[in-house]
């Protein structure tokens, strides 16, 4: 769905729900997930509707995922890091224990 205009450069490897994904180094996690075709990012805890990033600048809170065991992280606001573990099924900050299953 999304393709980098400049696809070159260094790659890093992150784990998305148990799947190893090669991503461009140094980009925001939300962009990396979009390039990897991850949709949706989360389901709303109120209605269960699927959601994906809207603003990509820290305002809409629709890109929240669990990162390295911490839930409710805005994927647009952090950079990918090699070996990062991402759980897209649990963007609910109150989900607690299952965030890093």
């Amino acid at each position: 769905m999304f393709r980098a205009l400049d696809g070159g450069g260094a790659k890093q490897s992150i784990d998305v729900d148990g799947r190893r994904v090669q991503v461009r180094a140094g980009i925001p996690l939300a962009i990396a997930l979009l390039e990897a075709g991850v949709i949706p990012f989360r389901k709303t805890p109120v209605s269960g509707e699927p959601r994906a990033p809207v603003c990509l600048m820290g305002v809409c809170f629709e890109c929240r995922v669990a990162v390295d065991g911490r839930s409710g992280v805005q994927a647009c606001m952090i950079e990918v890091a090699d070996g990062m573990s991402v759980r897209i099924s649990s963007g609910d900050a109150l989900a607690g224990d299952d965030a890093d299953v």
Partner: protein
Amino acid sequence: MAGNSEYDTIVIGGGMVGMSIAYGLVRGGERVLVLDQGDDAFRAARGNFGLVWVQGKGIAYPAYARWSMAGAKAWPSFAANLHQQTGIDVQLSQIGGLDIYLDADQLAARAEKLRTLADGVGEPYPFKVLDPAGVRELCPEIGPDVVGAIFTPMDGHVSPLRLLRALVQAFTQFGGELRSGADAGAIAFRDGVFTVTAGDERYTSGKLVLAAGLGNRALAPLVGLSAPVVPNRGQILVTERLRPFLAYPTGHVRQTGDGGVQIGDSKEDVGFDDGTSHEQLSRMARQAARMFPVLAGANIIRTWGALRIMTPDGFPIYQASTDCPGAFVVTCHSGVTLAARHAGVIADWIRGGPPPDELGAFSAERFHV
């Protein structure tokens, strides 16, 4: 009523109080103009917490307790009418509310005050003091530091933003006119006609309602009234949307119908500064996380400050002018709880009906003895 006026009534102030009254007036068939300031105004209506709250109101002033109780009772049909008129669900829930305590002495002192209030109010005033197990039955997510709570079935909450939008929409649908960015300055009264000047525009009416919040202080004397109101700042934090875990509103924390959790209980005398302070925000966040440990991991997405409109004793003012018949002043700091009263019995009174019971208790004369 002056037949040569453009409007039956001009309402100055398009916040919760002004729009509630204006909606009640147009529903009764009046031609109404609301003059509202710009987005740089203080706007308590856009900063408030959304409680439809009874418990604890009117300690040492039973008339205010009864007025608040009547306000809460009038809410269900008010919300239903707004929904029918506009299609907007204001997310009213009146399953009761909790005042949660982390300190046993404070809980005991508050319970004693409520007992006194209940004895003096002159009608049933149901409330219960709950131990932690009792609180947990209603709110399973409370933390181990909670020592108890006071519950009354009279309390509830609503979305204040949806409410304001519904009021504006309903008012407009009934033919009301709303002018935004209109800063009412001069008011003249002659031969039964009020002339209000806002910027380059002049508007005339047979009646005038001052519902300008903190602005009423300067406007009221122009028509022989008095509104000695001062600002009192409250700060609010709101979290990201969370799965519903708290059905009951509390005095400190409430989860909105959209999932966000509002946290706010500060009261500060800081003049016209509607900013926020790290000191208050962090205190309230810490306290909320002690009450509900699940909140400790939640992201805060916005914080803001807003100014309550307080009279010297904290109770409302409803008064008709004798110098300028047809002019009214209305001010309170519970524009949500009392919205149904303002759209109902207060609008009826302004249209020429008899003053509702209790109204005599809310004259500004009480500040001039």
